[in-house]
């Protein structure tokens, strides 16, 4: 992958990328009332804070709880009530505990409506790579990511549009090992909201100051604007 020469564009445009909080807020708008939702570790976890008032959403954590609530006060921590990121949580009224096979039956049996995950790379066809760079000295670790993308009905991704050095993360084809094939439905980046469709990647919204030329220069796959 080569770095992009975008300096000419930056001279003439004032772009205000969405913050991590704004990305989480934007994704939260697309979670309907009544959804059963699994949130990945990191920015996706923040989505729960921004669900619009009046919507009731139930959170699943794959280590065995449906009805996950916010973190407890420090003096109320139970080391055996944790989320998939191994952080202390609470259980809401109406919550249920279950064992791992039941928990993944919810995921693999398509009972969970939406999963929001982070990404290293996403392809134009919705392939997702988010567990390994394939580096030979890395300790491979996958957790539940492959089950979630294969089983949950709708997969949302929240990600920076490019890597820190500025390389595109949205590509014609992923170069890292895949987590799943053709699984991503919608991408919430710091620059745009993009739907993965049969006709390719369709941009539905852009951050302030971003236009299609600017976005395309930072994307490794062809984008079209929603008509």
């Amino acid at each position, binding site marked *: 992958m080569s770095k992009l020469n975008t300096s000419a564009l930056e001279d003439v445009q004032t772009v205000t990328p969405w913050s991590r909080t704004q990305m989480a807020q934007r994704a939260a708008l697309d979670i309907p009332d009544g959804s059963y939702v699994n949130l990945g570790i990191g920015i996706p976890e923040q989505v729960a804070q921004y669900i619009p008032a009046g919507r009731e959403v139930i959170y699943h954590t794959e280590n065995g709880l449906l009805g996950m609530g916010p973190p407890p006060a420090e003096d109320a921590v139970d080391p055996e009530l944790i989320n998939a990121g191994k952080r202390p949580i609470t259980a809401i009224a109406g919550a249920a505990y279950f*064992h791992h096979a039941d928990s*993944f039956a919810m995921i693999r049996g398509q009972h969970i409506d939406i999963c929001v995950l982070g990404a290293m790379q996403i392809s134009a066809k919705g392939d997702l790579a988010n567990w390994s760079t394939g580096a030979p000295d890395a300790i491979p670790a*996958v957790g539940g990511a492959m089950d979630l993308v294969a089983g949950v009905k709708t997969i949302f991704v929240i990600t920076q549009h490019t890597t820190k050095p500025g390389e595109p993360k949205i590509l014609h084809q992923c170069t890292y090992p895949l987590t799943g094939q053709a699984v991503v439905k919608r991408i919430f980046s710091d620059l745009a909201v993009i739907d993965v469709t049969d006709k390719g990647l369709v941009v539905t919204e852009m951050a302030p100051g971003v236009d299609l030329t600017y976005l395309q220069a930072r994307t490794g796959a062809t984008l079209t604007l929603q008509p």
Partner: protein
Amino acid sequence: MINKSIASLAEAVADIKDGDTVMVGGFGEAGSPIELLHALIDHGAKNLTVVNNNTGSGHVGLAALIENRQVGKMICSFPRTANSTVFPDLYRNGDIELELVPQGTLAERIRAGGAGIPAFYTATSVGTPLAEGKEIRHFNGRDHVLEFGLTADFALIKSLSADRYGNLTYNKTARNFAPIMAMAAHTTVVQTQAQVDLGSIHPEHVITPGVFVNRVVTVPEPAYESQLVNAKRHYP
């Protein structure tokens, strides 16, 4: 008379042999049977294949068992854990084998093994490196990969309460893999916080029925991994 109570932790793990497969309950520290793991370290069985979601934390519990060079192979979904370089260091040196399994596939392999189902197909991992070399079949318009049921010689798990028949209840998300590991192991050893009279666990509230349990040893105040790690404890 049926009474699955065992007096000591040492006795509960005494017949674990070199080369055995041992399933260890827990997801991170929730449900980790620290005292049984320490008894296994004292016992000293080597070249074990251990099934757990992770590889332990710090230098206690599962990480200590690995550090003590008793584990030849780990079967797990997420071997990278905060506060521990025990597994990564051995793995990079080629001193421990790893079978990486997606978490849901791991759970289902254990459940299937415990239910007498030798193999099954799943959509999880299709098109990824973890499906390489595995049989693929097309069902309902979608590719699926063949995975095999997993059984073990022993399961070491932790419960909140147990009666003398081995009926169990758990604490919150400490349940995780324990009920299915109890099904999949030839001998299931439980450390419980409380042994209770028959009938005091309502039949509607039994999570693991006693038929899946062989031995119960009481550990009234089990240690939590995080407390031991924060105190910089090493075992032994």
